[in-house]
């Protein structure tokens, strides 16, 4: 009896201790952990969510030089993961002070009252960004919802040594690309010229943007949705033909299998944003300095146009209690020379600040591409402007489901886009948006 009571008392004590420990270490608060010390006695403490690599080092530089405003950095998994977290915590009013917001998510976030207007501090540095990019953070109005950090104009990355080995020329137009894809199949039956973005709606969005597709537009207080317009169908049919003929790989990207294909030369080129060299260093580490950079193949040989894939801004949330301090930090992060130099060298971003763009040297992973800054600037200037709608995540999810199915052989890609269009329009109507001409 006595020993049983002692055992049970001990067990109860252990349970209580575990509960207390569990409660005190709960991580539901927005201030995540970071390698820097917690704000000790500083006037203002800001929390910052971002997925940019090495951002903690840049935050450390700010903290060292600005003792009155301490920023606590919390690394996030990626764009989609953070967007979901932000929208959910917006409902609970537990958002961090500063978040990274991809351009395509900004209308959704504005609609959900996530982003605070920082026009007071941001308008001072308006001149450092191109009008196209500035439009993405203002949505055409007076309010400024974020400060652009980087942009993703798309370029054509190709394996130099393998192009030389098979005697391939860099394609100038999409017709060239299709012919090249057939050529590759003849010379190297196991290789592919490129891969179709089966699970990358952002990549396809950029390619459609290059061709002039307008997926969302506003007129007055109604939205127009054109995910299955003629231009999108043209681009979809172009890729459809190549996928069905087996000339283009249609396996999902960002998987170990895809990494291997990029690494060992099964995939010979990639239509990706200017941030690609940083990504390639982890995806295909064995291919260092073996990628050449060119403009995207064009629909119209007489001019240069490209689309955007990704790119993000940094924004202050409506839950923040120190919006002015947070906005000051953002202005420093995205326009200050020291900060943008670190962004280029440590984080591998191609900055949106036009002054900083001039300081971009050859990427660390592709040191022999010495004219990278010029190529990137040309692409940046040639980016076709775009408008994002209030439910991009629905459109992207519908893209993944329908286009993925079509690529698996069940239907044509243009039909898949009709299904995506229907899903997006239905979703917007259900939420009460006025959709014109549907």
């Amino acid at each position: 009896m006595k020993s049983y009571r002692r055992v049970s008392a001990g067990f109860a004590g252990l349970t209580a201790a575990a509960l207390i420990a569990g409660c005190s270490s709960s991580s539901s608060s927005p201030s995540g952990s970071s390698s820097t010390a917690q704000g000790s006695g500083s006037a203002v403490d800001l929390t910052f969510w971002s997925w940019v690599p090495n951002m903690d080092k840049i935050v450390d530089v700010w903290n060292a030089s600005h003792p009155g405003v301490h920023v606590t950095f919390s690394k996030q998994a990626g764009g989609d993961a953070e967007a979901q977290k932000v929208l959910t915590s917006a409902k609970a009013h537990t958002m961090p002070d500063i978040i990274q917001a991809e351009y395509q998510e900004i209308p959704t976030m504005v609609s959900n009252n996530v982003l605070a207007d920082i026009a007071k501090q941001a308008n001072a540095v308006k001149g450092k960004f191109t009008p196209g990019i500035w439009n993405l953070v203002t949505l055409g109005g007076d309010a400024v919802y974020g400060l652009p950090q980087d942009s993703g104009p798309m370029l054509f990355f190709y394996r130099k040594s393998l192009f030389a080995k098979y005697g391939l020329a860099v394609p100038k137009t999409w017709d060239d690309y299709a012919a090249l894809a057939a050529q590759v199949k003849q010379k190297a039956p196991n290789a592919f010229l490129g891969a179709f973005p089966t699970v990358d709606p952002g990549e396809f969005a950029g390619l459609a943007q290059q061709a002039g597709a307008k997926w969302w537009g506003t007129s007055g207080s109604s939205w127009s949705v054109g995910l299955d317009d003629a231009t999108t169908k043209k681009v979809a049919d172009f890729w459809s033909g190549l996928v069905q003929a087996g000339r283009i790989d249609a396996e999902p990207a960002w998987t170990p299998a895809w990494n291997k294909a990029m690494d060992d030369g099964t995939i010979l080129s990639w239509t990706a944003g200017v941030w690609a060299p940083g990504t390639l260093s982890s995806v295909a580490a064995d291919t260092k300095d073996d990628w050449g950079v060119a403009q995207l193949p064009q629909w119209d040989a007489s001019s240069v146009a490209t689309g955007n894939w990704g790119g993000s801004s940094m924004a202050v949330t409506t839950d923040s209690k120190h919006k002015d301090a947070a906005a000051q930090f953002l202005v420093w992060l995205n326009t200050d020379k020291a900060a943008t130099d670190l962004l280029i060298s440590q984080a591998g971003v191609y900055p949106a600040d036009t002054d900083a763009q001039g300081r971009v040297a050859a990427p660390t992973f592709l040191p022999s591409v010495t004219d990278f800054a010029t190529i990137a600037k040309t692409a940046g200037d040639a980016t076709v402007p775009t408008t994002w709608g209030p439910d991009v995540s629905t459109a992207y999810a519908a893209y993944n489901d329908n286009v993925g199915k079509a690529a698996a052989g069940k239907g044509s890609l243009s039909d898949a886009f009709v299904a995506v269009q229907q899903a997006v329009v239905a979703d917007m109507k259900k939420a009460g948006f006025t959709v014109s001409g549907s």
Partner: protein
Amino acid sequence: MPTSRSRRYRSLGTRAVPYAAIAPAAVLFAAFFATPIGFAIYMSLRGVHVKGLGLDPHARVEKWVGTRNYSQALGDSELWHGVLRTLAYGAFLLPVMLGLALLFALLLDSARARLTRFARLAIFLPYAVPVVIASLLWGFLYLPTVSPFQPLFHFLGVPMPDVLSNSTILFSVANVGIWGGTGYNMIVIYTSLTALPADVYEAAKLDGCSEIALAVRVKIPMVAPALVLTGLFSIIATLQVFSEPTTLMPITKTISSTWTPLMKIYNDAFGRNDLYEAAAEAVVVAVMMLVLSFSLLRVVNKRAFGDN
């Protein structure tokens, strides 16, 4: 006088003890079970309405929409496809997993079994692997370009079969669940087997029962309650399958983001940011599972638990 007063005091204290004993459980139940369910039902009856372009900070208004979310959920073909898919998944997984668990338990319990402790541990070990890790593991095994089986097929001169195609994906995902769940169910059934009285076996052996007949005619009927238990828990767990397809989704285009009902609910809530629709779907799925569980229990109650 003092006696009756102290007796009254003692009875009041004694009466309060049961309530004090269940108070923690009642509080936890209310806080973490009843309140969230009530909130989900409340959310399922509301929706969001947008004014104009929706870009104004006050453009989104949450309001009462009655049963609109429910009619939408019930009419959503994607949800019902997911339900049918999950039923097919369960129809394959449950017999195979429980059959294997029963087989292994019987084998381990048979008189001639060797290395029983090692075998028990080895069969149970997959259960200790977290579901996400197990799905990643099997994902690597399935993908031809990174699978360690690829050299074997290369040696045999045949291409590695594409187990992630539309016709085989159900079995491939179910395989992960079978691999992980068989050990646990086997332990439950084996424990029930070891609790059987040995004199029943002796009586059967005296009647000239072979090992196999002993297993089929004597052991299986006597572990029927354990089978029902594991079967019911497995059904409930299988119909809520979420982790395996979600982890395998990025590596194959045959699994959509709405492949199972729970994936659809998660996608609607956090991918499409429509918590209200997701709440309605969650209530619909929960009610379906309750009905299924109760009817199953009714059916097997008599056979398994009646007149023992």
